[in-house]
């Protein structure tokens, strides 16, 4: 298939609060991915960096920053910012270059050094910025939106606080087996219930933390992979980076209101569902083909939403899928075998790349203690501020 690229290497810097700069994390992840691929940095034809807004100017031009740190060697460079979907757009950019014949081997890097506590908008008085406005006018933090979604699911689908807590229990159990995860302790339902309410109905352990961390991939053309001795590499078959369709009818960060659907009828399905649909169409597969999924569990309740948006179950059936053990390790479609954001925390430009790292290791059968059986097709899903969608399909 002409749309495929090979994943030659995957690497991470462990996630946590390390107190160092994002460049250091990114370089460590890049070197790990290059070593995994068996590729020298000098042989990389292009580098794509996923940007971090917290790294100042070097963070805005992350591609060049990582290239300089690794040693200028003349590679083509690109830097992309798409909020939480930055990593997927970096992968998409690399894939496009490879498929267009502009580069044989591309290094993709995302890294962040996140602040403690709530994410906050950039400084200054900027009433033309929706992200600034939602904080100034409403005090609406990210968890406030997660709370709104969670409460809505409880009212519409009958999800319970216990269902939400069970997502954390599942992901913490997986994260406990992952040496790159920040939180490596199993969590019991009672601990979730005993943690402080942040944004009703969600508690501290329902919501992911902010972290430092990095992830990197070495991608190549299929021809190069064969010449390089990788006869049967993990292949990326689809990268979805679709935008929403007007009118959007689900209140999303950082918006104060949805679009009006009074004049223009909304499209079938939500934006999140359209992200997955585009990936499936491009990959020529359906949800029934999926062996595992890495989804964006900013909150426990949001993971249940993704089950439905990925078509792993029908609308409103996410909690049932969880209760039936389908999404647990050993279930029919394990979700967040890495431990998810629940175990990693957010390192914004790195996380969509980290999702593909986990899928790669699972498809290779090298995921160690958290390895699931017989994985052939993995999907990732993620959504970023300002209408950025992201989903990657990888196959073996």
């Amino acid at each position, binding site marked *: 298939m002409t749309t495929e690229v090979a994943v030659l290497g995957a690497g991470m810097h462990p996630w946590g609060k390390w107190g160092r700069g994002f460049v250091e994390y990114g370089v460590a992840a890049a070197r790990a991915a290059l070593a995994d691929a068996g590729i020298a940095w000098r042989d990389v034809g292009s580098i794509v960096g996923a940007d971090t807004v917290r790294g100042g100017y070097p963070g805005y031009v992350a591609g060049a920053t990582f290239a300089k740190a690794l040693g200028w060697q003349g590679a083509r460079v690109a830097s992309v910012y798409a909020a939480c979907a930055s990593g997927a757009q970096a992968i998409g950019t690399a894939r496009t270059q490879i498929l267009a014949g502009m580069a044989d081997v591309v290094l993709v890097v995302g890294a962040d050094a996140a602040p403690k*506590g*709530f994410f*906050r*908008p950039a400084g200054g*008085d900027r*009433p033309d910025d929706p992200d*600034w*406005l*939602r*904080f*100034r*006018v*409403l*005090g*609406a*933090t990210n968890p*406030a939106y997660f*709370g*709104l*979604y*969670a*409460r*809505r699911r409880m*009212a*519409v689908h009958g999800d319970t606080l216990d269902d939400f807590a069970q997502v954390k229990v599942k992901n913490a159990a997986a994260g406990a087996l992952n040496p790159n995860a920040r939180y490596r302790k199993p969590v019991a339902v009672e601990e979730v219930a005993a943690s*402080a*309410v*942040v*944004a*009703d*109905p*969600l508690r501290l352990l329902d919501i992911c933390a902010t972290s430092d961390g990095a992830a990197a991939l070495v991608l190549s053309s299929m021809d190069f992979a064969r010449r390089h001795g990788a006869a049967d590499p993990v292949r990326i078959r689809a990268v979805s980076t679709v935008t929403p369709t*007007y*009118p959007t*009818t689900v*209140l999303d960060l950082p*918006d*104060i*209101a*949805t*679009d*009006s*659907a*009074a*004049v*223009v009828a909304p499209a079938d399905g939500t934006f999140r569902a359209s992200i997955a649909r585009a990936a499936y169409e491009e990959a020529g597969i359906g949800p029934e083909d999926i062996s595992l999924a890495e989804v964006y569990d900013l909150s426990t309740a949001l993971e249940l939403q993704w089950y439905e948006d990925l078509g792993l179950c029908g609308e409103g059936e996410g909690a049932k899928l969880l209760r039936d053990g389908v999404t647990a390790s050993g279930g029919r479609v394990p979700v967040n075998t890495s431990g998810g954001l629940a175990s990693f925390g957010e390192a914004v430009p790195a996380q969509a790349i980290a999702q593909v790292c986990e899928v790669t290791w699972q498809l290779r059968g090298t995921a160690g203690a958290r390895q699931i059986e017989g994985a052939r097709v993995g999907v990732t899903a993620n959504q970023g501020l300002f209408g950025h969608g992201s989903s990657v399909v990888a196959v073996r």
Partner: protein
Amino acid sequence: MVDNWFAGEGDDFRLLGTRCAACACVFFPREDGFCRNPGCAGGELAEVPLSRRGRVWSYTDGRYRPPAPYVSDPELPWEPYTLIAVELEAERMVVLGQAVPGVAVTDLEVGMEVEVVPGVLNEDNGTTWTTWHWRPVEVGA
């Protein structure tokens, strides 16, 4: 800060959006520069008041102090506020806002009727920043 997002006193208080003269799409917060309907070549955008009442789509609260630019006195203990997302039937849109002070999440249910009322966001050296609040119709109406 947010010029012309709302106007009026008492029962006449309304959120203000804009409506495209070409396609009739309504926008809140107001769009004054362009119509965001992809099927519209763009028309004049005129101010339009939004429905005064709607139904609770969802709600939550903020148990921790939000970061700046939200204004709160760090000397005072944090008082959680309640946020309500309200579905306006005529506009078929959901508008987020703080609940009037004193309304807690335990006072709310999805589907409950609420109305928009004037409120105070914060006061600072003699300047009062006004805003809109959602108030359950059953409470204090």
